[in-house]
């Protein structure tokens, strides 16, 4: 029978295979891993979050999500690898094991399941959700423009047929609203990391305004350390900085909202490609991408643990 040791982390998987992986991981590690359903997508698919906890109640926590843009397949694949890595570290009492002594980790691997299923069946390059709002002749909203942070301002599109359509109103997308509700109800998340691809960037707020984040200096220094750790493995070059100074103005973004909620350590990763394949990164690059990203994530998680606020 399949188990998470025979699971092929060096291949892309369908939604059902990833759901199966999650159930296997929970079954194999009942004292560490549990699966929460934080909501349902537009097409009524469950929005699953894996919780890694060694006990306590409402401990300070770290949130990691992958796949909010469905075509960015290396991110969901990396999320699967991260899940297994957390379990292995805990079993070997190394890496993030020390973080799990005092913090919980929440990992949402398929943050946009409708879009992800659509990339496997109808359109490999679908990015958005699959919602249909009255008055829109096109399907889908960009789930990274739908948050209540500068929503609808410059840096997103009001045209439902574009890739960066912000949606009819903030949190119109259940995939977004579910995370908003979870973050608000948990109330003790200290680091929030949303993972995208591609272009090798580590970004922190803001995207919707030019004003620097109050913690900009600390976030910049922490980014430098995280990028140094990431690059140390395979030499993958990353750039880092605030969203608006590093790429462009983007409104309604995830980490601008989480930062404005008081989650100081809010970051977005843009994983590989180094400039040959784009979203179609070959599967043989999944594991090296996940491994190097993990080193950067660990720096951020350890900093959050050591600098509780």
């Amino acid at each position, binding site marked *: 029978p399949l188990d998470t040791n*025979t699971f092929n982390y060096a291949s892309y998987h369908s939604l059902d295979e990833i759901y199966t992986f999650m159930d296997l991981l929970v079954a194999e590690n009942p004292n560490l891993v549990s699966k929460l359903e934080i909501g349902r997508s537009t097409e009524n698919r469950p929005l699953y979050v894996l919780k890694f906890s060694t006990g306590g109640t409402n401990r300070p926590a770290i949130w990691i999500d992958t796949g909010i843009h469905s075509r960015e397949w290396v991110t969901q694949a990396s999320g699967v690898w991260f899940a297994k890595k957390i379990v292995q570290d805990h079993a070997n009492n190394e890496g993030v094991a020390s973080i799990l002594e005092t913090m919980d980790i929440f990992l949402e691997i398929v943050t946009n399941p409708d879009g992800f299923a659509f990339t496997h069946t109808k*359109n*490999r390059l679908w990015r958005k959700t699959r919602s249909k709002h009255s008055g829109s002749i096109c399907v889908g909203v960009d789930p990274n423009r739908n948050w209540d942070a500068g929503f609808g301002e410059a840096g997103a599109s009001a045209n439902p047929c574009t890739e960066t359509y912000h949606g009819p109103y903030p949190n119109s997308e259940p995939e977004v609203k579910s995370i908003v509700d979870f973050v608000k109800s948990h109330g003790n998340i200290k680091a929030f990391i949303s993972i995208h691809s591609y272009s090798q960037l580590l970004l922190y707020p803001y995207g919707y305004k030019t004003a620097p984040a109050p913690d900009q200096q600390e976030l910049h220094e922490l980014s430098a350390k995280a990028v140094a750790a990431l690059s140390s493995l395979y030499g993958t070059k990353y750039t880092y900085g605030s969203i608006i100074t590093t*790429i462009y103005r983007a409104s309604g973004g995830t980490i601008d909202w989480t930062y404005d909620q008081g989650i100081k350590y809010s970051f977005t990763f843009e994983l590989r490609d180094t400039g040959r394949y*784009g979203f179609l990164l070959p*599967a043989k690059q999944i594991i090296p991408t996940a491994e190097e990203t993990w080193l950067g994530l660990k720096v951020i998680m350890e900093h959050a643990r050591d600098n509780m606020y």
Partner: protein
Amino acid sequence: TETFVGHQVLRVVPKSDEDLQKVQELQALEHLQLDFWLAPRGLGVPVDIRVPFPSVQPVKAHLEAAGVSYSIMIEDLQALVDEEQMEMLRSSRQL
């Protein structure tokens, strides 16, 4: 299922404000159905554009007429999608 036969991904690295402007003009031409994988961000930073087959020639003509250099990052997008599908099939068969 959406296929990408004949689609190409072009990479433009704007070297001047004029280059950047020419690329941004393309963003406004909705009839070309361009998909900006990497949107324009500044000088010296790659812009990757998925170009559907019918728009390949007009887009190349637009860039060449403006003297904007580009490279073809993905020559045949459908071939890459097919290769990815084959790899997944092999993997699940092994399983």
